[in-house]
């Protein structure tokens, strides 16, 4: 498997991975804002968001129709749709594509659900690897608390209830997330995850993320052409600007 850079795409793909509640969505949102405010060609794509597949996925989840195999396949269908219709064309057009979860989410979850790892990896073998993958590594308890604080109504599949780990929703969620974390850690080296300490403050994490993106991606090449005349010398931002300075 190769990255988009290795495949000579003009675009670059940055993915974030981590447990539910690890704060990865906040981090990729702040990264997106930072890039957009500099007039970059940015596209953001979320896991499980393809319009076409959505109705089938939500039907399957609502009625608890999904088995590990169909759960895996329907998410692969969703991914393929976004990959072929959005990600690849945008990467060909030289966009900086940000993905909230990528194939590693499937590698971790589907395997925990009991699908053979080689089969799952085979399903996704049409996809190239991200140029950068951030893994937001949080203590299990911290992630759990974040989810449980904000959204006390856990969903059936989110809690891994289909695995019959426990009859208690919260206990099931704990065990399930713990196993997913193990899977993530096991592939961290193989897929060159850039590990970010997700127990840190939002700003600290964002600083790390922006610095790593700036180091590894030639950001200048992603500026929109039409913005150039208006901003001949955009303010250089080697260091992260903290996203939310308290108002004076």
């Amino acid at each position: 498997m190769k990255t988009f850079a290795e495949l000579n795409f003009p675009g670059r793909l940055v993915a974030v991975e981590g447990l539910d509640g690890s704060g990865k969505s906040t981090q990729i949102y702040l990264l997106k804002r930072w890039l957009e405010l500099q007039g970059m060609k940015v596209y953001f794509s979320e896991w499980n968001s393809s319009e076409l597949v959505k109705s089938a996925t939500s039907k399957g989840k609502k009625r608890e129709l999904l088995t590990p195999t169909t759960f895996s396949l329907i998410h692969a269908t969703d991914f393929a749709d976004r990959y072929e219709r959005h990600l690849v064309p945008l990467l060909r057009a030289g966009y900086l594509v940000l993905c909230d979860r990528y194939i590693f989410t499937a590698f971790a979850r589907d395997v925990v659900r009991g699908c053979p790892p080689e089969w799952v990896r085979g399903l996704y073998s049409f996809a190239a690897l991200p140029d950068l993958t951030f893994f937001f590594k949080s203590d299990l308890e911290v992630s759990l608390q974040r989810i449980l604080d904000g959204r006390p109504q856990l969903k059936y599949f989110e809690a891994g209830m289909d695995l019959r780990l426990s009859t208690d929703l919260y206990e099931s969620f704990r065990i399930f997330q713990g196993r997913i974390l193990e899977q993530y850690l096991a592939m961290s080296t193989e897929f060159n995850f850039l590990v970010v300490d997700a127990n840190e403050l939002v700003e600290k994490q964002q600083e790390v993320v922006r610095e790593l993106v700036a180091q590894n991606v030639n950001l200048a090449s992603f500026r929109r052409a039409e913005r150039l005349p208006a901003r001949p010398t955009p303010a250089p931002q080697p260091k992260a600007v903290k996203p939310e300075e308290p108002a004076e």
Partner: protein
Amino acid sequence: MRRVPANQIVVPHRSNRRFYGHGIPKVDLERLAGKLIVVEGADGSGRSTQIAMLVEWLEGTGHATVQVGLKRSTLVSEELEKAQQGNILSRSTLSLFYATDFADQLENIILPALKSGFIVLADRYIYTLMARDMVRGMDEAWLKNLYGIALEPDAVFYLNVPPEELVQRSFAKNTALDYWESGMDLGMSRDMFDSFMKYQKTMQKTFRHLQASYAFTIVDGTRQAEIINAELRKKISAVLAGR
């Protein structure tokens, strides 16, 4: 047809079951007592007629049957139909969508029915899905991994009818050729008739290629329905008897 007296109903012989690849997690193959019979072939090759006749015969001889086919899953059949009408999905997506439809029926109909000792008649199986994708340039190894979830059937019959006759049958029935069965999405020809002929020829070639990996019986589908059915019944009887 030879009449089997009610007290002499043949109890199907247990077969050695296997999945083509990784299979479905946590399935006890030993417990799948029923039989899986697949009828493959192009549209107009007479699949549904043959299956209807087989159901009559099987039920008459004391066997419970269940029928499955492509695009019939509770999970995604509607969405798949919609997506196909708009022709908006790209190859891997459509392929995975069909695989989801297949897996849903495999796990929720085929496997439970086999466990209960039913004879499952499948109106097409993974081979059509694979052939369609291969004709469209998808990687064979990728498809083999994908459909490694499938259970190996007890018998697969491919009803072989040359494109020249398929086209006649299609017109006799619908007075129009189907967009997908003509492979119009491939852009082989703007002329639908030409495209149909080319596409069906390529599909037949691909089926012959797949036969090397997935041994199936090629049946001459140009003969009378009763004659074809007699051949199928004879072969299925042998399967039931474990011969």
